[in-house]
Structures are given as structure tokens and as C-alpha cells.
């Protein structure tokens, strides 16, 4: 399939959002019962924009990403409700064959652990070149040239000499660069990065984030960053969705979320992380544990841990997403009051 054909696979002259996810629900059938991993999550992403999905383990952030990428095992997973549209084209319910055309070429994904995503017995150069041969139909030698080219773009030193090296011969940061090279080789419109820097050292983390931001600027790609780290997203994402127990707790621009959060969970997270610029006697920790997804408490899922919880929070229905300012929504019965207090508790 030539590149020209692929470009028109999305709607020509599309002016709406690159990706729109609406009321997405994902559930898993398990031996112990039905796990509702994602419940009514919605967000939009424009070309050239970066959004972050922030959450702890079990929040549903990675399952959301896997649903967009179409890599959920169905069954046990299923999408009972909701829609995922890429340039207006519905992806939910797409056949595996059609999805395969989209994956890699229009949507690409990088994972936390690059070593287990790469084939250990094929040289990294070959693995990148394979993308060009399979998707672009390039000849072996053209594919090699293109692969070295893209390896240089992600700044792998001495790319031509390292073409024949195997994944274990690279450091963690370099492996993540190789993954990024493989993914951008097909010029996807949307890149999903699931904890791309979590396994890396801080100095290397900074390099990789910078690289991602730069590649995105150059190519007008949309980027979804899945992370648990409130620090990593602060200067790269434009908008943030905070998830808890499979639900959207809060959504807004990065400045709004950090400066004037409107959800007690977001506030708890921001307060409980240790700060580099100051020391405190005690960290204001969030009490308790995240819920078991088989027994999510009624009402607001955060109420057993919330310092503001009232009777209304302990009963169904769950609090709806309330708009506190333009483009800033929060799922909390007291969203407006929390927001008006200008954020942090003290």
C-alpha cells in the first residue's frame, strides 16, 4: 500500500478533532465477576496537541489507551458502550483486518518497557527497516537507508554502525528511542505513549520527553501521554484528564488543573507528592487505598478517602461532570466550591 493511498484513508479535508472518544466503557469478564475498568470516559484531541491521562494503577488509564489502539483482548474485554472516532471514522467494532491497517500507520503506541516490545533476536536496524518494507513496500537497501535516517532523527549516535546491534546492546534510554523511531517511521497522526519514561533515569527521562515534544512539533502529530507522574506532564501536555477507579474525575487545561484544581482527589494527589523546592514535617497523604474494581463503592468512588465527603457522596447516583470554568470539568458534588477556594486546602 503506498503512502498516498493511506493518507486518504481518513476523511479528506477533515476539520474536526483528530481523535474523539465519547462515553467509552470497557469491561472485563473475570472469574470473580465483571470488572468495569473504564466508565464513560470522553475526551478530544486535535492534531499537533498533547493531552495527558493521569491516574494510579487500576484507574483505567492504560485500558483507555489500549481501547483506542484496538489491542484489547476481546473477550474477556468488551466495549459495551461508547465511540472512538479517528478523523470522524468510528473505530469501535472495526474488524481486526481494518484495524491492522490503522495501527502503526495512523495510530502508533510506545510502552514503558521497550526491551520487551522489541524482538531480542533481530537487530534493531532490521526491525525498523521491516516497517518500511512491509508498510511502504521499500526495497531492502532503501529500507535500510530510511531506517538509518530515522535512527538519526531520534539521535542514536553512530546510527549506521549500530544498525546491526541487538536490543540488549542498547541502554534503556536508547531502546526507548528505537521504539520511538519505529513508531514515527510510519508518520502516524496519533501517538500514544504509555508511561514512556517511567523506567528511565531522570536525566534520560528529560532527553526522551524533549525528543517526543520535538518530533511532535515537526509533524503535527497528536500525542496522548499516559502517566502516573504529575511532574512529567506539567510542561508537555496542554490538557489533562485525571482518572480514578475507571472514571473521569477532572478534566481541564494543565494550568487550571495544577493551579486551581476542582476535585478533592486531584488536590490530594498534588499535595501528597514530595516537592523538590520545599521540605515539610509530614506529607499530607491521601488516607486509605484505591478501591477494588470488583467492588467500587456507591456514589463517588473516591468518597471513602475524601476529606470532604458528605452523605450525598456516599449514595448513588455518582456525581456528574460539572463545568467549573470554560473547558474545565470535575466530577464532584462540591466542584464549584472546591474550585472557588483557589485549589489547595491550606
Amino acid at each position, binding site marked *: 500500500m503506498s503512502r498516498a493511498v493511506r493518507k486518504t484513508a481518513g476523511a479528506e479535508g477533515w476539520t474536526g478533532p483528530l481523535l474523539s472518544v465519547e462515553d467509552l466503557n470497557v469491561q472485563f469478564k473475570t472469574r470473580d465477576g465483571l470488572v468495569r475498568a473504564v466508565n464513560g470516559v470522553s475526551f478530544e484531541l486535535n492534531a499537533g496537541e498533547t493531552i495527558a491521562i493521569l491516574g*494510579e*494503577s487500576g484507574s483505567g488509564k492504560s485500558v483507555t489507551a489500549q481501547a483506542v489502539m484496538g489491542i484489547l483482548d476481546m473477550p474477556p474485554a468488551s466495549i459495551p458502550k461508547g465511540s472512538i472516532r479517528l478523523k470522524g471514522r468510528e473505530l469501535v467494532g472495526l474488524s481486526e483486518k481494518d484495524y491492522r491497517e490503522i495501527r502503526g500507520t495512523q495510530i502508533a503506541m510506545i510502552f514503558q518497557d521497550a526491551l520487551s516490545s522489541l524482538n531480542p533476536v533481530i537487530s534493531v536496524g532490521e526491525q525498523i527497516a521491516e516497517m518500511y518494507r512491509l508498510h511502504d513496500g521499500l526495497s531492502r537497501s532503501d529500507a535500510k537507508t530510511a531506517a538509518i535516517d530515522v535512527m538519526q532523527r531520534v539521535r542514536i*549516535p553512530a546510527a549506521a554502525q549500530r544498525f546491526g546491534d541487538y536490543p540488549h546492546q542498547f*541502554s*534503556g*534510554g*536508547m531502546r526507548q528511542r528505537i521504539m520511538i523511531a519505529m513508531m514515527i517511521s510510519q508518520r502516524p497522526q496519533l501517538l500514544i505513549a504509555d508511561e514512556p519514561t517511567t523506567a528511565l*533515569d*531522570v*536525566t*534520560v*527521562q*528529560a*532527553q526522551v520527553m*524533549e525528543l517526543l515534544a520535538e518530533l511532535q512539533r515537526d509533524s503535527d502529530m497528536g500525542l496522548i501521554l499516559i502517566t*502516573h*507522574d*504529575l*511532574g*512529567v506532564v*506539567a*510542561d508537555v501536555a496542554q490538557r489533562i484528564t485525571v482518572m480514578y477507579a475507571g472514571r473521569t474525575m477532572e478534566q481541564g487545561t*494543565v*494550568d487550571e488543573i*495544577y*493551579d486551581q484544581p476542582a476535585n478533592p482527589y486531584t488536590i*490530594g*494527589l*498534588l499535595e*501528597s*507528592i*514530595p*516537592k*523538590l*523546592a*520545599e*521540605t*515539610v514535617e*509530614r*506529607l*499530607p*497523604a*491521601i*488516607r486509605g*487505598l*484505591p478501591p477494588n474494581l470488583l467492588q467500587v463503592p456507591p456514589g463517588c468512588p473516591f468518597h471513602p*478517602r475524601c476529606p470532604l465527603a458528605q452523605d450525598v457522596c456516599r449514595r448513588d447516583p455518582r456525581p456528574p461532570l460539572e463545568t467549573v470554568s470554560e473547558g474545565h470539568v470535575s466530577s464532584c458534588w462540591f466542584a464549584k466550591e472546591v474550585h472557588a477556594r483557589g485549589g489547595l486546602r491550606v
Partner: protein
Amino acid sequence: MAVFESDPVLSESDPVLKVVDLAKDYPITRGILFRKQIGTVSAVDGISFELPRAQTLAIVGESGCGKSTVGRLLVGLERPTRGSVFVDGVDLATLSPKALLAKRRDIQIVLQDPYTSLDPRSTVRKIIGEPFDIHPSALPKGKTKKAMVGELMDRVGLNPEFANRYPHQFSGGQRQRIGIARALALRPKIIIADEPVSALDVSIQAQVMNLLMDLRDDFGLSYVFVSHDLSVVRQIADRVLVMYLGRLAEIGSEPQIFEHSTHPYTQALLSAVPVPDPQHQRERESITLGGDLPSPAAPPSACRFHTRCWKAQEICSIETPLPRQLLGEGHLVACHFAEERSMIGTAAGGGDQAQRREP
């Protein structure tokens, strides 16, 4: 560096732990039947520090810098190639095996991964009670092991009724509490905590850190806290040792390192920590280091940091910089071109006055 007297007189002001010129080499071998050594990896090279009673010394650095190896050397999981470890003034290397076993009670370790460091087929009671099987004398008179395990569980915030459960029935944060209870069982003086909160969720990290700080205050514990996370270190440490490829880069008090860092590597580390404040993040100065950590099997000559350092001159690859005092008391830096530079915007009130600038 002064060598310890052979007959130590214990006083409160003496450090509980003193490490002098600690080093660990690992052989690189080739061949299966006929093994021959073809080189060495110097994982730790000449680390010295003192840990005052009831204080926390943090060891920070990138992966592969040798910080965990130092922790393992201190608890005796590895034998040092060179150097001495003094606990309460006693050189561990001079002790008989029996005396060493008794002394080991004083140093315990908490490991990073609560999923792999607990035996999945043992109950929590067995895991926490096991230290008493090795050191029966550690059990207080008139107390059963069962009662002690219950007390320990209660102390770390676990319900003692769950003593018959298995590790997989607990969450990550709770498992880390089990590991902490086990380390506390023998009433040690020193706990080596190797990345104890790194594998935990954000909202659980703070709980476990608060627990560690409470235990330190209640039991007068001293910690060696090994971590890559500088924000976490800032909260818990009294002193900070920055390591690079097995060697000391800089050591000093928490305010000295965080507010008045002088080693280019410390400065780069501080500037790379992501800060959860978009405004600050966009405006602050950042130093991005080129390249990766070199292989410890073939470390760069002289100053091992010179291949990634923006200040490097010819001398850095010829002459090894020795730790020297540049600013305050107890603040040592190993760099030819060390220079104070503030890397983090300080919050109102800023740093302690602990640092007095001297010419």
C-alpha cells in the same frame, strides 16, 4: 581520613555507622568450563561517609551508579573488596562469625519491590516472625513470637488479624509495610531502605514515607535511604550522598545539596527532576545531559563524569578530582570546576541558614 580507635568509647555524638573507603569490584569472566577473568567492574570505588544517630543519609544517583551495591555491602549481602564498615565504632571485618551474626541484628534492610522480596508461600506471621528464628535472643522475655508479630503489624499500620494471610492478599503499599515490620523485628539501629517507595502508587507513597519518618522518631532509627527520586530524598534526608559510576560526586547536608549544589552532576540531576507546576516547569533553567551513563566495565578516565559534563576541560580526563570542601562544613565535592549554582526555585522562606559561605 582518620582511622577509628581500636577501643571505641560509645557516646551519643559518635556516628552509628561509619564507612571508610568502601569498594566493590565484580569480575568479568569468559568461558564456561575454563572460566577466566577478563576484567573487572568497579561498582563501588572509595565511598566514605558517616551516619549520625537517628538521622537519614540518602544515596542518590542514576541506575548503575552503585548506590544499591553500597546498601548490600552494608548489610553483608556482598563482601567488600576494600574498605571498612564500622557499626557503633566496631569494624565488622574484625569480628568472629558469631559476633558478626549478633552485630547484624543492628542493620536490617527494606527492599524496593514488595512483590518479589516476600516469600509468596509464607504467611505474614511467618515472614515477620522469621528474624526471631535466627536471633531467638531478640525476643523480649515473657513475650511469644505471635504477640510480637501482632505488635509489629499494629505498629506499621497493618491489622494484626491478617497475620495468617499470604502476601498476594495485600496491596503494594501494605506489602511494603510487611517488609518494614520484618526489618523492625530485631529492633535494629540502622535500616537500609533500598528504593522503598519507588514501586508504590503516588497516593500510597506519602503514607509509607510518613510511616518511615514516624518510626525513625519513635525508635531512634538511622536510615541509609537509597533512591533515585530527589523529591522523595529531600523530604526524608538529613544528609545526601550523590554517586556517579561508583564514586562520590558530592556529599552534604540536605540544604547544602538542594540549595547550594556545587557539582555539575548534582546540578544536572536537580534540573532534570520533573516538577508538578506547569508555570515553574516552563520557566526554570534545565540542563540536559548528553548521552547515557557509560559502562562501569570501561569507565572514563580520571573524572568519570567528564564524558557528559559541559564544564569538562583537559584536566578532567587526566587527573581524578578528590573530594574537597568548597563551601560549608561537611560539604565535599569531587570536581575540578565545582561552583555553587542554585538549581531549584526555592519556596518562600527558602533554605536553611545551615550553609555559611566561606571564601
